[in-house]
């Protein structure tokens, strides 16, 4: 590694214009991330035309800013309202929202922000130091390994998202079932019920908005009908003093330092696997954090460790996703693909040679990720007093506003009016599920992971029709064993919990 190249990258990145691009990017990324339906991918696409007129490094810096900001921004609405801003912040709601309910929203947000900053840093460090090595390891992951990894992630979904295992499983299966609608991996259209629009299946974002945001609106309507809201109290929103426990937040995160590192490493590694995605990383990190914690039973009721696990792994994914992009020239997700597209338009071909042909550019990526992490910290800390007040706005105004923005976002994602109907439909589904106490997050995870699971399985069988390969490849076998263990452990835990409850009742 040539030191002068790194110094040049730093020199380039620390110019006022570059810093401006990164901070602008992070700011819009945070906004896009915190509104369900506005994803950072969309923000990056919107920024895409602007990069035409920039230097490649500047364009990339802007996009990286959006990317990092967006990954972190999802925690805001997830923590404050229980409506995840992005699919990858679903897990953050598990502990973030209960903390808000307890009146600790500022603390929860602070923990989330700090964890996502550390996650970003650790991800970037792994990318910088171990990138090529991790890339080599990731190539060992064929369709069999990814299939087994997702099976493992799915077994965690049911157990983690609620008190009732069977209801969690039910929700997960529902998500998997919805995921089968559309074009199968072998190219046939199925379950479209003769509706042409269904041929492309359900994309997760409209479903997420419907399930979480619209159903919240329905629940609110019901609550309002039951007890008419007291008028007048809302005027005090901006006057009310909000105390932000900065010291407490630092203490919380310090207490969870191993959790931060573990979750970031998991996030970074899963992020670099093609197709596995940030969503599975979050669940695995959360599960690991819970297993290692001394206060297992407090997870899900507002434990700082839950937020730490989710947010640090969520942001470490960024460093991970850049590994295949830089070392192999293969974009890890759509956001990365757009960034590569911008580079191609500037005549830079990403690929295995990128490191040798554009060393300064590659090092600028590392630097930009780092600076974005700092920007996330600065901007979100500054916004914190404002953000915590969001919870003080009466939901009668807040939820419809969010819903309006989200629905626009759902439409703009693929420019299809039909997606708004999907939002509406899943709003009703979400409300009904809420009424019968079925957790919503497994539905979304099932929908996201199901199609990948099936595509990988099809690929595995197209390569080798033997089912035994899943068990003879060591990494695949490892994940399958972990899946079985996690399932058995969950059943035992749930039984024990139920027994405890019975004893209490008797």
């Amino acid at each position, binding site marked *: 590694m040539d030191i002068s190249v790194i110094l040049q990258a730093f020199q380039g990145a620390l110019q006022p214009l570059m810093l401006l691009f990164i901070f602008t990017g992070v700011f*819009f990324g945070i*906004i896009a991330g915190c509104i369900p339906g*506005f994803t950072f991918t*969309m923000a990056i*696409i*919107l920024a*895409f035309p602007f990069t*035409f007129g920039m230097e490649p490094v500047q364009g990339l810096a802007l996009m990286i800013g959006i990317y990092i900001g967006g990954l972190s921004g999802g925690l805001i609405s997830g923590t404050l309202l229980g409506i995840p801003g992005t699919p990858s912040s679903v897990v953050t709601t598990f502990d973030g929202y209960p903390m808000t309910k307890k009146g600790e929203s500022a603390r929860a947000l602070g923990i989330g922000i700090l964890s996502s900053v550390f996650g970003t840093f650790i991800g970037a460090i792994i990318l910088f130091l171990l990138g090529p090595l991790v890339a080599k390891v990731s*190539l060992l*992951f064929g*369709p069999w390994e990814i299939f087994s990894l997702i099976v493992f992630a799915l077994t965690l979904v049911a157990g983690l998202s609620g008190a009732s295992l069977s209801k969690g499983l039910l929700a997960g299966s529902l998500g998997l079932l919805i995921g089968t609608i559309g*074009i199968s*991996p072998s*190219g*046939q*259209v199925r379950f479209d019920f003769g509706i042409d629009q269904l*041929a*492309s*299946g359900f994309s997760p974002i409209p479903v997420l908005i419907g399930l979480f945001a619209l159903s919240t609106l329905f629940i609110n309507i019901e609550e309002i009908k039951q007890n008419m809201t007291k008028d007048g109290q809302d*005027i005090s929103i*901006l*006057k009310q003093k909000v105390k932000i426990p900065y010291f407490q937040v630092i203490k919380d995160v310090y207490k969870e330092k191993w959790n931060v590192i573990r979750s970031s490493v998991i996030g970074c590694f899963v992020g670099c696997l*093609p*197709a596995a995605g940030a969503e599975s990383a979050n669940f695995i990190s959360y599960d690991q954090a819970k297993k290692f914690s001394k206060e297992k039973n407090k997870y899900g009721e507002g434990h700082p460790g839950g937020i730490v696990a989710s947010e640090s792994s969520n942001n470490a994914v960024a460093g991970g996703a850049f590994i*295949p992009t830089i070392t*192999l*020239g*293969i*974009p890890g997700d*759509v956001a990365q*693909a*757009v*960034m*590569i*597209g911008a580079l*191609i*338009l500037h005549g830079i071909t*990403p*690929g*295995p*040679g990128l490191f040798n042909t554009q060393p300064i550019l590659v090092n600028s990526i590392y630097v930009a990720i780092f600076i974005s992490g700092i920007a996330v910290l600065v901007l979100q800390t500054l916004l914190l*007093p*404002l953000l915590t*007040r969001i919870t003080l706005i009466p939901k009668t*105004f807040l939820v*419809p*506003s969010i819903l*309006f*923005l989200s629905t*626009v*976002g759902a*439409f*703009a994602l*693929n*420019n*299809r009016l039909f997606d708004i109907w999907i939002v509406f439909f899943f709003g009703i589904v979400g409300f009904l599920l809420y009424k019968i106490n079925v957790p919503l997050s497994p539905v979304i995870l099932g929908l996201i992971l199901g199609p990948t699971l099936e*595509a990988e399985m099809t*690929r595995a069988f*197209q*390569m080798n029709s033997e089912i035994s390969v899943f068990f003879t490849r060591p990494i695949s076998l490892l994940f399958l064993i972990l899946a079985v263990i996690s399932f058995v452990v969950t059943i035992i835990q749930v039984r024990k919990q139920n027994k405890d409850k019975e004893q209490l009742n008797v």
Partner: protein
Amino acid sequence: MFIRYFVSKNTSMKRGSFIMKKAMLGLLMLVMLAALAACGSSNNATAETGDNGETTSFPEKSIKLVIPYPPGGGTDVLFRLVAQYAEEELGQTIVPTNMAGATATVGSRSVKDADPDGYTILGTHQVVATAEHTGVVDYGFSAFDPVNLITSTPHIPSVSKAFSEENGIENINDLIEYVEEGNKVTWAYTVGSEDHYTIAALLDAAGVDPRSLNYVSYDGTGPQYAAILANQVDGMTGDYASGKGYFDEGTLVPLGMVDEERNPFLPDVPTIIEQGTDFAVTVDRGILAPKGTPEEVKEIISDAFEKALENPELQEKIEELGSFPHYMDTEDYKTHLEELDSKMSELAPKMEF
């Protein structure tokens, strides 16, 4: 509406932290603006229905160019680039709109059903026909009015370095022989996509059953390269733009150029025709309009693209992307598509469609 709420609230609250209020309002406005921008960029072209009588003044507003693929891919990048130059000739903006999904039929369907006024057009390639022959949709090229051809991109069937060294496969004939001997070759493809057609048609032209390869399906080219690097598959149908880095590095061995002539960027790779198999089909990206679009409108669009493609700066940029500027006017493009479609429908039964 809720902006008004906040505004009135703002005035009613005389005391209290003013800056905070302003900041909150500003933030809200910003978000609203972003929302409107996001929806405006995709809405403006469909808002009004054009009047067929007034075509002489076409275009009076921006034109929506639907790209049926996600942003950042080869098709997206090419169309965005060309659209930038064509809108200067048109005097109106062209708004690239990504509508991805369902083997590119989400986008094609929306254009097929759009008003035939020239304000909604589709930028696509052979996938329109493959989607029909794979049975994803029941319409193909004939459901559209062709406008003009823009670029041609030659495919490059390639194998991994390991596979090439192990079995001594350096050109397309080596591969054909190897397959004819009954050996198993695992080939990455995207089911029902244009690369699927190219490899199948090539093998068919060489007298080999296209079904003799062991196909593994991937969503797009990126994951195919990953599978090659990991030695999970033996070969794939790539192109210069996306494969350059791998060709340079030697991890991907090009077997031949599927084109009439050699590619100046890869002068050492002979064409398939040079190697004795009479086959040359490029990926042809062009503009389609909804059926019934007035002739004059199509001509105006087509002329704009023709002039844009004469610009040497654009030509150079297209070539950097591994494609070649290839303009064809409405009539020629129509004949070209008809020929292509009949060839594809002949081959369809042999492609496990």
